[in-house]
Every structure is written in C-alpha cells, then in structure tokens.
C-alpha cells in the first residue's frame, strides 16, 4: 500500500482538519469528532445534514456551506458514522424550522441516522429524512436492501440546500429533496480497485485488460466484469442502463460525469463528449453539465454518470447560489 498518510488510525481526523484549515470561512469542526458544520450558523432555515463513510471526498464535508449542507458527519473510511456523532451534528445545526437528513441507502447508514434522529426527536427537534438510491446497477426488489445511494446524492444536497435557504418549511424541503431522489439515476464503472487504509490491500481485483461495470462507491461488485472498451462504448453502456430505468424522452436533464478519484479530467471530458452527443441524438436536452470529482472512492480509477430530470422548480433551485468548499454556483 502506497498512500500519503501518517497513520491509519488518524486518516479521517487529519483529512477533516485539513479541510477546515483550507476553508476556515466556510466550515469548522466540532470538538466531539469528525463532524463539520458551517463556520457561521444560519437561523431561520431548515438545517441539512448528511454524511457517510470517509473516502468519498469532497463528499460530504466539501458540500457544507451556503446553499447546500449545514453539517456533514464523516465515519471511518467506507463505514457509516455512529449515531452519537450524527446526533451531535444535529444538535449543533438545529433551528426552530427543523432538520432534514440526507442519507445514502446502505443498511448501516440508514440505521445509524435513524437512531440519531430518534435521539434528537426525544430532545424535541423536528427531524425528517430522505434516502438516496440512484444507482441503477443494483436491481431494486423486495428481496434486497435496495439500490445504493451514489453521486446523484450531490444533486439532493444542491437542490434541497437551495430550497432550505429560501426559508421554506421542513415539509417543503423534504418534498423537493424527495423529488430529486425520484428523478435522478446513476451508474458507474471501475478500471482499477481502491485500498481502504485499514485493510492495506485492494478490496477487489481487476486484470490489466478488465473493467467492472456497475461498481458501487465502496468497490462493491457491479453487474459484471468485461474486457475494457473505448470511452465512447463504455459511456453508451452506462447511459443505456440509466435511460432504460426511467423515461427521459423529451426531458431536460442535468448531467454529472463524476470521477472516482484517480481518473484524470481529460478522460472525464472525453466521456462527457460522448454523453452529450448521445443524449442530444436521443432528443434529450442538456440543461447543465457537471464534470469533476464529486463523490470519489479513494484512488479508484473509473467514473459514474448521473442524469437528473428537471422541471422549472428544480432548474431554479439548481441555479441558485451555492458557496461551499467543493461546489460553487
């Protein structure tokens, strides 16, 4: 394992402290743990909290700031944060308008956030939540935990965050967040695996000429492995799966080409070149495009595509001001 770290036990804390030192006007860290909140608490709005395992930077601490999150809680690498940490975050940001939690659909994340919500509700804090599940690679059935929450979650942060900033009440912010969840779909792939520092070795293996289609953001198995193909062919494979899932015909969309951590922007733009042309051919209008590292998987090479169906309400909120370490509008 070759990594820029000091000691495996400290990676999460040192990462958060480094983030805060880089953006002291945006964020500060709570003393109780790896919990990041806005440098200046804003009253009179619904407070948004999200989080999950570390290793997905800039998610989620990079999205704390005006127009997006009020708090992000970082667990150990690829491990959900614990309820006591989430509870401290909720208490720090809660306003009289209540708190919305944005939780990615993993068994541990959902349980830990639910426990924290119960603790906060016992204190009289109004808490609601949405669960993001945008990954179309996993079949959605009654017999699984359901689809995974991946990069589409960033759209929920952006749009629900913008709604909260208007002073809308908790039910309204929840409604808009759920609307994003209902309209965003994603799918990813990997060229190389990643290594969790505490594990010291890669979570899975790929041969030199192989790729994994449908990979999760923790390196979970995808739909299948196959021989590597051209960027255009891979982009079409992922897009076809997304387009088959919900009806995008004649819709306007926001596109996110998300790098997994080790993929150069050059390659992400090459992918976007094809995504743009392919969607245009299909008569799908692209309203806005985001290319970059939004929800990574340590040093995994690969990318994901997210497509969000838009209406006038979502467009306006997507365009609203955001000023966070990793997302500015």
């Amino acid at each position, binding site marked *: 394992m070759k990594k820029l770290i000091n000691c495996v036990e400290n990676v999460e804390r040192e990462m958060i402290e480094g983030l805060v030192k880089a953006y002291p006007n945006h964020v500060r860290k709570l003393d109780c743990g790896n919990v990041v909140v806005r440098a200046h608490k804003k009253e009179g709005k619904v407070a948004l909290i999200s989080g999950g395992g570390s290793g997905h930077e800039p998610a989620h601490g990079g999205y704390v700031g005006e127009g997006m999150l009020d708090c992000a809680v970082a667990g150990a690498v690829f491990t959900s944060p614990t309820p006591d940490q989430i509870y401290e975050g909720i208490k720090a940001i809660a306003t009289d308008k209540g708190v919305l939690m944005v939780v990615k659909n993993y068994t541990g994340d959902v349980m830990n956030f639910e426990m924290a919500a119960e603790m906060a509700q016992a204190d009289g804090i109004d808490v609601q939540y949405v669960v993001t599940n945008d990954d179309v690679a996993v079949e959605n059935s009654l017999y699984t935990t359901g689809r995974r929450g991946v990069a589409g979650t960033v759209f929920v942060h952006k749009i629900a965050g913008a709604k909260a900033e208007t002073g809308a009440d908790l039910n309204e912010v929840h409604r808009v967040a759920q609307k994003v969840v209902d309209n965003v779909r994603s799918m990813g792939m990997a060229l190389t695996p990643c290594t969790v520092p*505490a594990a010291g070795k890669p979570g899975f293996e790929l041969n030199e000429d192989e790729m994994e289609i449908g990979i999760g953001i923790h390196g979970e198995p995808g739909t299948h492995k196959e021989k590597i193909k051209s960027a255009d062919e891979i982009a079409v494979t992922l897009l076809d799966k997304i387009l088959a899932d919900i009806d995008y015909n004649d819709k306007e969309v926001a596109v996110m080409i998300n790098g997994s951590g080790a993929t150069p922007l050059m390659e992400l733009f090459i992918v976007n070149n094809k995504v743009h042309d392919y969607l245009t051919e299909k008569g799908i209008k692209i309203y806005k495009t985001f290319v970059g590292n939004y929800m990574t998987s340590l040093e995994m090479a690969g990318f994901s595509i997210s497509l969000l169906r838009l209406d006038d309400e979502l467009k306006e909120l997507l365009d609203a001001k955001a000023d966070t370490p990793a997302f500015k509008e």
Partner: protein
Amino acid sequence: MTDSKKLIDIIQKISTQIQMDKDYLTELDNVIGDGDHGINMARGFKEVEKKLSDFSNKDIGSILKAVGMALVSTVGGASGPLYGTAFMRAGAAIGAKNEMDGNDFLNAMEAAIEGIKMRGKSHEGEKTMLDALIPAYNAMKKSYEENNDFKAAISKGVEAAEKGVEYTKTIIATKGRASYLGERSIGHQDPGATSACLMLKVIQSSL
C-alpha cells in the same frame, strides 16, 4: 442465575472471545459483506472493556444499557446499531435489578430480538444474526418452562444457535450488503449469526 458482578465477568469474557475471533469474523464478512465485522466488533468490545470498571456498583439494567451505548458509538456499520439496540433493549427490559433469574434473561433476550427486528426491519430467514438468536430463544424458553433449569436451557439455546448458523449457509441474504450478491451468498455462513452464537456460547461456559 447471575448478579451484577457475574454479569461483568461474562461481558469481559465475551469481549475476550470477540478479540480472539476477530480475524475469523472478518474473513467470513470478506466473502459476502464488506470485510469488517470482526474489526468493528473488536473495536466496540475494547471500548466496552474500558468501561467495565465503572460498572461494579451498577444494576444489571444500567450495565446492559451502557454496553449498548458503547457499542452504538464505536462499532459503526450495521452491527453497531443492531447489537447496540439489542443490549439497550435488554437492559430496559430487566431494569434496576441486581440479580436476574432465567425468566429475566428470557425477557431480556426477547426484548433484544424485538429491538434487532425493529432496527434492521428484518425477520428470521434473511441470513442475519436473527437466524441464530430466534431459534436459540425458542429452544431456551421451551427448555426453561419444562425444567426450570437455566443451565440446561442455555445448552439447548447454544445447540439451536449453532444449527441456525449452519442454516444461514443454505439461504440467500436479503438484508445488508450481502443482499447485493443474491444467490451468490448461498454456501457462506452469516458473520452476524456467527458472532451472536459466540456470545451465547460464552454465557453457557461462564455459568
């Protein structure tokens, strides 16, 4: 059956057993989960051990609740909330007693199982810790009602839990990360059922 002092001793032994089986539990999880069950459980019970010295003057309910809180705040993942809820519910069921009998234990175990079902939105047959705990509880309850002998009952419970762990090899996971594997999860035993069974075995050997 046991008092606060004996309970602290049992918890210490459970922790020792979990530390010993850390790599084994992690290996089981590597195959069908995300390969951290042993690591996470060992970290959680290390934290529990640190608190044991504070427990000496406490009642059984408070001790179990404190164990649950320690697990919830250090284990993370899915096991943290599940085992944490189990111990907290067990503690609440027993309350401020300094001694517990077989009926108290069974009531606490029933409350723990209900807590796990509620937290995990799960039931028997989904390749989880419930597949060890529910058969164990049923066997123990039957045996205790018939003979009023807790030692005999816990032996029946361990037997049923071991069978339950074996049974998890034959079924598809429908909860947790293992559920992404679908049919590929068949043939592998569930790490959570395994750790639950380990705990019951420690209780058996401690009495």
